[in-house]
């Protein structure tokens, strides 16, 4: 007989960072209509967006908080809204996805912000769970990497790796090192390439370019996840009594060329060393947001996240297919 996930009767009161991002907005909506969730506080770096106006103030509060500013974060944690909401779960989504954003130092938000938030959660008694949205970009891919990547696979500590990747590895490591504590269940979810409307993941950008340059002689097996399943996985992580690192595997696994064909893109195979020059030129001219240096190994070597822990421990199964074309 199948064991059912242990779901506590007590309602989850959730703090969501990065609530104004596409995934943040979807996560907020999902939890808002989730009967197992009590109160929600969404935080972001901008003023309250219009799409949160429809939510009842008795269940949802939006606060403009910059998690980089320790004082602002501290004020949030001692605010009456926070105390009255009895926040017991934190979902950390505040992470800069774009490579090209120049208005802030991504490293500061990605790593310092995560550190500040973790510190604050450690010092706040009521918080029992911390869920962090990580990515498979933390893994180091090599020609001899296994096709299926388990959670224990080498992280990319290459000193020459782009800052974008280093940030992700640093933040992931911060969460992992905090897992030693007994009080908070820290869950790190490593997602594959996220696909969906308004999602600015690197693969989403790559697959939607009008003309796609592909490394010649390589066609790795990649895994794509629908943004809706990202939200569902976060919901599972919040409600299930689990902790640790989990790879999340999406429903679509196929060679890169298959997805490009399904998406009806014009594909031009070029030798990898030329591809980096082409991308550098496109990048400088502002013609693309796709940044080859962070993707070069992912466009050459297969990387399918293992679903073993996701299925056995988290008991999550992705349900949504990605739509192409």
């Amino acid at each position, binding site marked *: 007989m199948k064991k059912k996930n242990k779901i506590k009767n007590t309602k989850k009161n959730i703090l969501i960072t990065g609530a104004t991002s596409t995934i943040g907005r979807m996560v907020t909506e999902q939890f808002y209509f989730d009967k197992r969730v009590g109160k929600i506080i969404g935080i972001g770096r901008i003023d309250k967006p219009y799409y949160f106006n429809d939510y009842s103030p008795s269940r949802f509060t939006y606060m403009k908080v910059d998690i980089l500013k320790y004082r602002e974060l501290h004020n949030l944690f001692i605010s009456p809204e926070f105390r009255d909401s009895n926040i017991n779960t934190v979902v950390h989504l505040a992470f800069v996805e774009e490579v090209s954003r120049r208005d802030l130092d991504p490293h500061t938000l990605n790593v310092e912000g995560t550190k500040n938030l973790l510190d604050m959660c450690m010092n706040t008694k009521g918080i029992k769970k911390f869920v962090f949205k990580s990515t498979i970009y933390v893994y180091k891919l090599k020609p*001899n990497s296994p*096709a*299926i990547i388990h959670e224990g696979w080498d992280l990319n500590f290459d000193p020459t790796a782009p800052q974008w990747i280093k940030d992700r590895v640093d933040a992931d490591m911060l969460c992992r090192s905090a897992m030693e504590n007994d009080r908070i269940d820290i869950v790190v979810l490593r997602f594959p390439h996220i696909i969906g409307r308004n999602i600015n993941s690197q693969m989403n950008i790559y697959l939607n370019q009008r003309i796609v340059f592909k490394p010649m*002689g*390589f*066609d790795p097996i990649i895994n794509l996840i629908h943004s809706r399943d990202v939200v569902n996985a976060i919901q599972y992580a919040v409600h299930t009594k689990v902790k640790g690192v989990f790879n999340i595997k999406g429903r*679509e696994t*196929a060679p890169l060329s298959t997805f490009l064909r399904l998406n009806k893109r014009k594909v031009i195979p070029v030798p990898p060393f030329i591809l980096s020059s082409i991308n550098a030129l496109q990048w400088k001219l502002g013609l693309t947001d796709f940044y080859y240096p962070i993707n070069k190994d992912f466009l050459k070597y297969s990387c399918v996240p293992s679903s073993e822990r996701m299925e056995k421990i988290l008991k999550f199964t992705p349900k949504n297919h990605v739509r192409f074309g």
Partner: protein
Amino acid sequence: MDEKQRKLVRKIAERLLPREERERLLSLKDQLIDEGFGYDKFGFEPESALAYYLFFNLLYKYWFRVKSEGHKNIPPKGRAMLVINHSGMIPIDFIMIAIDVMKNANPPRIARGIVDHFAGALPYINLFIQRGGSVIGSRENMEELLKADQLIGVFPEGTKGIGKPFSQRYKLVRFNVGFVELAIKYQAPIIPVAVIGAEEQFPQIGKIRWLGKLLGFPYIPVTPTFPWLGLLGLIPLPSRYHIYYGKPIKFYKRYSPDSAQDPELIRRLADHVQKIIQEMINQGLKKRKSIFK
């Protein structure tokens, strides 16, 4: 491949192959653990394997005129490990075994070759390997395949085996031990396989290591015809292949999975398998009348 290309391959197979052979090959599709687009998670695509079969079967039948025996030793289903002696500069030996297993094993099976690390970095070659069902030789890949009850083909001599000088032909290089460890841990029978004939296809007389490193290979071999005749020098000598499948060795019946952690035991068992294969090779060589017969 897109759907059109897949249909084309099936159509060509229909025209070129006798019905029984075609049906055997098409039944291999049932062994695919499809991830949804006609590929498994390692990149194996049955239609690509079928296309390779159509080409390499010609080499199998007319060039190397392969003779084989002992197919009944290949388990009809479940995880198993073909442990093979490696030879011949280019790994045609495994391609011939894969064709032979598709042709003669009952029921036909896909033999999933475990390929050396460097091949993963080689453009097109990595694709050829993946689509045909082989995988790069990382321990994790082998474990995944065994967990999925696949038939895998390993060469415990590694590239040292394939790169032996001609004077050392049919003398096995000491086996690596990892295959025994996995066979015990995952309770997979080991089927010793001896290949005779591949050593003569490219008699190696030297190696150019610096050029190999430059091109991403362990070395560039020198034979009486290569590189002197350019690409023509890569045409193998049509020596006849003899493939012998030995009786399955089931270490897991005698040793518990914990024994896989004992390095001395694993070493001893790997040497034991090596001895069996060397014996099979010696017997095969005695039976052989000439390299072409």
